[in-house]
């Protein structure tokens, strides 16, 4: 049996994390979450996600800081999807999805990010 795709959700808003976790688990993904960029950096090596779904604006290490960490991983790192209630940051060409999250749009974006990996 093919192992489930692992997704690490990083968002400082508990409700966004919980909602996305539930929705993505319903779709058959293996999901873990982290409250901010610093917690996610520690979780990356342990959980080894296929996809990193991260909020851009967070206290401390933000989504762009986390993006730099993930890009520097020795195994090439996970596919990355950025999300934010604000417009997509300039100069970043990673897949992006606006908030509130439309789960169908998110699923398509995750698949696109996995293909780019």
């Amino acid at each position, binding site marked *: 049996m093919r192992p489930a795709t692992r997704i690490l959700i990083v968002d*400082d*808003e*508990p*409700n*966004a994390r*919980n*909602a*996305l976790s*539930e*929705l993505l688990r319903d779709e058959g993904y293996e999901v873990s979450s982290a*409250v901010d960029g610093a*917690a996610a950096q520690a979780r990356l090596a342990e959980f080894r996600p296929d996809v990193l779904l991260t909020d851009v604006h967070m206290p401390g290490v933000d989504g762009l800081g986390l993006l730099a960490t993930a890009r520097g991983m020795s195994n090439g790192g996970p596919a990355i999807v950025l999300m934010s209630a604000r417009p997509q940051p300039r100069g970043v060409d990673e897949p992006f999805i606006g*908030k*509130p*999250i*439309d*789960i*169908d749009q*998110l699923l398509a974006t995750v698949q696109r990010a996995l293909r780019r990996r």
Partner: protein
Amino acid sequence: MEIGAPVRFCAVLRVHGAASPDGTLASARVSCPRKGCVDGAECIDCVHLQAFRSAPEVRLYCSVDDREPIAGWMRPKPPSTTVDTRCHAADEFAAARGVHHLLVFDRTFTLVGIACRCDLARGGTRAVADVMSSDVFAAAPATTLGDAAAAMKQLRIGCLPIIDGSLVLGVVTRRDLDRAGVPA
């Protein structure tokens, strides 16, 4: 909950809506605890909406801030009765209005008690004043949802009048707090 996480929200409301013919949220009618039945297009712009899916059924994941003032969740113009009213008549009135509690006012229009339907049903032809609870706990409109829920749980009450000085603005019941995602 993770240690050190900001405890801003205390609940996710999952709102289920009627399936729309074309499967889009914009054309769906959803049952929002805050606004009642609303057009799904309003939800897309709502600051409380975190995530949603529109098919096979509409599901909205909304945030509730337990620091939100309780005034936004109270029911204005709460059904009320007077101390002299007979219990059976007051009980019929409460049933007709679909409420479990009635605020009780005296002849000077002062709030003096709360009567629940359990007490009224037992009261028969006695006056409401004989069966009502005279210990009335009330909250100011700025009281937070979290504080109101904690108080109702501690005091073991199911109905909390919201007052501004001597003016009764409305009531909040356990059911309202359940709808708000902050159960008492």
